[in-house]
């Protein structure tokens, strides 16, 4: 894993953007922020390369998924963590469509889940990352309730 990976974080909820950025910084990352999908594209183009993109799905101007499809089409294979609180059943498929180096993280997630996802994506040299571990439950006392913290592994 890169010592201080450059991570681009995008979320339109500024409080959450701060929280994720802080958490990632705590994990040793150098964070660049974007507040919407259009900004995400801009930063990717202007301030790259990045080791990792962490993005929300629903954002103004362009969704995180759209932005990442666009960058994939542009030949950018940067690993991506897609975060969402949407319960839409098609999202896992859409994340899978971004290729192997993409992971879905359901909101809310805790620091250990984020860490696991980051580690998984940055430690893997192969373009097809497969999940090996179940995500850490946000509340160990009640497993099963955090079913949404799932990985898109194909």
């Amino acid at each position, binding site marked *: 894993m890169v010592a201080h990976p450059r991570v681009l974080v995008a979320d339109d909820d500024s409080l959450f953007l701060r929280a994720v950025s802080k958490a990632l910084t705590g994990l040793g990352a150098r964070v660049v922020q974007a507040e919407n999908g259009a900004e995400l594209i801009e930063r990717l183009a202007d301030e790259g390369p990045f080791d990792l993109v962490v993005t929300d799905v*629903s954002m103004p101007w362009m*969704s995180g998924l759209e932005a990442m499809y666009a960058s994939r089409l542009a030949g950018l294979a940067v690993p991506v963590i897609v975060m969402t*609180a*949407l319960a839409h059943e098609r999202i896992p498929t859409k994340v899978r469509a971004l290729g192997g180096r993409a992971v879905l993280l359901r909101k809310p997630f805790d620091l250990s889940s984020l860490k696991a996802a980051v580690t998984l994506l940055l430690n893997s040299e192969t373009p097809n990352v497969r999940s090996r571990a179940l995500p850490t439950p946000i*509340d160990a*006392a009640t*497993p099963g309730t*955090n*079913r949404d913290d799932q990985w898109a592994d194909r």
Partner: protein
Amino acid sequence: VSSSFASIVKTLMKIVKGQNGLAGRAGTALTDTPDTDRDLLCRQIEDVDHASTSVFEAVASLPESSVRAVLQAIAVQARHLTSAEFAAVGIGVNPRRPFDPWVISGISHEQALTIGGYPRPVGLLGLVAKENKPIRLRDLREHPDHFRFMPDHPIMTSFLGVPLRYQGRAVGNLYVANKRGASEFTEHDQRLLEMLASKAGVAIETARLYAAEGMQHAWLQTVIDQMPEGIVLMDAEGRVTMQNRSMLSLVTSDRHERDRFGNLITVDLRQVSGERVSPDNLPIVRAIVHKATTHGDEYVVRRSNGRLVPVLVSAAPIFTTNGEVAGATMMLEDISTFKELERLREEWISVIAHDLQQPISTILLMADALLQSGLTDGVEDDIRHIRSAAARLSRMVNDLTDVSQVEAHRMRISPSLVDLVRLVQDVVTRMPEMLSRTSIRPPERGHLFVLADAERLEQVVANLLSNAEKYSAAGTEIQIDISENDREARVSVTNYGTAVLADELPHLFDRYFRSRAVKTSPTRGLGLGLYIAKGLIEAHGGRMWAESDASGATTTFHFTLPLEAYELLPSTMVPAAEETTSSAGDEPEE
């Protein structure tokens, strides 16, 4: 009206022809009549006989005929029999209410209109009813009970009135006035009229019953036709006897199948899953064949244009007084509007859920970041509390989302092959406080594969375990049995302690239900866990129920999953109802 006139004409022709019948018997009863009058009398009696026959014919031709038509026939015949200028029949004996109906013969319709409304059984007319015996007068105007005629009323002099009786009680009166060719009605006229009246009483009563029933039928038909629900009626032989307009609006023209009774199946009824309901399983067929009652079950009707209409179906057999099936009725209630509201609510809930999860995410991540930054033990504890409260809040939001999906039958599951034994073991392992007291009894071969959504199934098992924990006495064993038969896999979770009260058993799976037996828990949920668990199991095609044994102080929750559904599951899991509602679109939006 035309048919009643036709019957009157027919009647009159028969009267003119004249034949044998009652004449013989009546003739012997009137042997005291002077010989000179006998021939005439016999002919008149024959006339009465035929007159009454025609009355009965008029009745027999019901329901085309009406009470009014029957009365009209009686009036015409009374007039003919007694050579009267006018005749009238009035039903009713209450002096405060007009005769209804009141039928006249000898006065034109226009003339009757100018006279005014129906008379009441008062004065002379009322006296006949009141005295309940015939009154015969040379000049009615001289009678003390006679009121003045209305201005346009024809002048009447000679009068004969007899009561119409049915089973001994007066139901109305038959009047004739102005004897042609004589100054007054004779005693013979009176007898003839009485004989006619006795026949007419029965005829009128029959006609009235017919009319009442006909009215009821017509009323029922109108009411049923106006009902927004689709209604089908079948008789005991399974013949469709009625379908209302709403039902016809659900009819599909492209089906040519027949049910076991030979009725063309015009409504394409399907399970919510999209599976067609076989002819023998149609609720109305089951009502007749198995006396089975269906109450508000959800189905969808596929219209010719492919549109699916969500409906609630009720069906029930109709029993005769001696308990035989006389037929069956089925009712289809279009709940599209309700479903649309349900969909909007679900959409709204998912938006709310999304918005709520966002700040919860922030709290969780921030709390975790704080915990990493090195704090005093006291502060660290406080932050852990904040963290677990946020986690609980998040679970509640998930529960609300799940409930709205269960309610709308839109619970999505992504099935894969899952080892039930392994899954249960995993869940127990992840609940450290349960691990030591839970024993798992797997089936003999040690594994049991089912086609299921692993995460959802984990949710169910975890819910049952935490539920068992709530009901059990501290430290007692919680037992999980995993078994199978040739059709289904079964998981049973048993706890010892306070048994769930028998009267609470059926309500355990209700939303927001809380048992009186449950220990007060510091981490109260919304009371949705079992409701959701059951909904999840049902979305898998399984069943969930609870049993309690008060003597052994045990409570067991069971759920089953179908084993034969390996191929079936993926297709049936796609809710057919999706076609009815507009899709949420490909791209998820906030």
